């Protein structure tokens, strides 16, 4: 089971992800509300996996992915995208994000995507 950092500026979305993954045995070790916090909390908490929103204040999710991967090339990051963000998702995947989940979240899809990434890691 994974220690997860959730990065999203909307508490609504952070709570939703938490409620989807905690019953699966994962633990949420931190919540970041912008890209700067995401990078800082990654350093501090060293989570097994990060769910990263793309559109966030101060530093975008894509910049935060680049910032984390520059120091931690093996970091497992899943992008949270919405309709119309295909180009940004591609940019994040090219930067090294492992996969993406699409809003509105489908719980089964979120769980399966995280599971797939963790299995590849083990």
């Amino acid at each position, binding site marked *: 089971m994974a220690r997860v950092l959730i990065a999203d500026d*909307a508490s*609504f979305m952070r709570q939703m992800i938490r409620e989807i993954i905690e019953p699966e045995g994962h633990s949420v070790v931190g919540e970041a509300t912008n890209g700067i916090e995401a990078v800082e909390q990654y350093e501090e908490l060293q989570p097994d996996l990060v769910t990263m929103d793309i559109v966030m204040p101060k530093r975008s999710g894509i910049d935060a992915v680049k910032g984390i991967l520059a120091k931690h090339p093996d970091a497992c990051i899943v992008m949270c995208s919405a309709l119309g963000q295909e180009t940004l998702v591609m940019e994040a995947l090219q930067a090294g994000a492992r996969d993406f989940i699409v809003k509105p979240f489908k719980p089964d899809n979120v769980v399966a995507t995280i599971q797939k990434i963790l299995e590849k890691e083990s």
Partner: protein
Amino acid sequence: MALDVAKYRKLFLEEAAEQLGEFSRALLELEKDTGATESIDVIFRMAHSIKSMAASLGYDSVSEFAHSLEDRMEVIRSAGRIASGEELNLLFRGLERLESMIEVVRETGEPPPPEPELLSELSDARAFDPSTQIVEAKKKLQS
């Protein structure tokens, strides 16, 4: 996982109220400075966030309307500024409409349908594209 709709509706209404406040403040900044990029970014993010939250709750009309505002802001973001007073006015009307839609959700638990005309105006990105306006003005002069 069964979504606790009442709980998430409350969260949505609280968070959307804050975001609409930020949207409004940023729009007032844009009225003073049509090239205020930070304000343009704020409105883009607020529309984006409301779109995603509304979609999560099945408030499709609210999500669709916020999406059209987000798309409009994407065009403005690329241009780096509001093209005209007319476009600013459109954003004020968009904000007002979004506020009223969310108020209906607060009162009834259901969203109303969007105004098709305003949705269409917001979607008509070409109307405020300065290059398009120049080309169309030239065409008029030549005809």
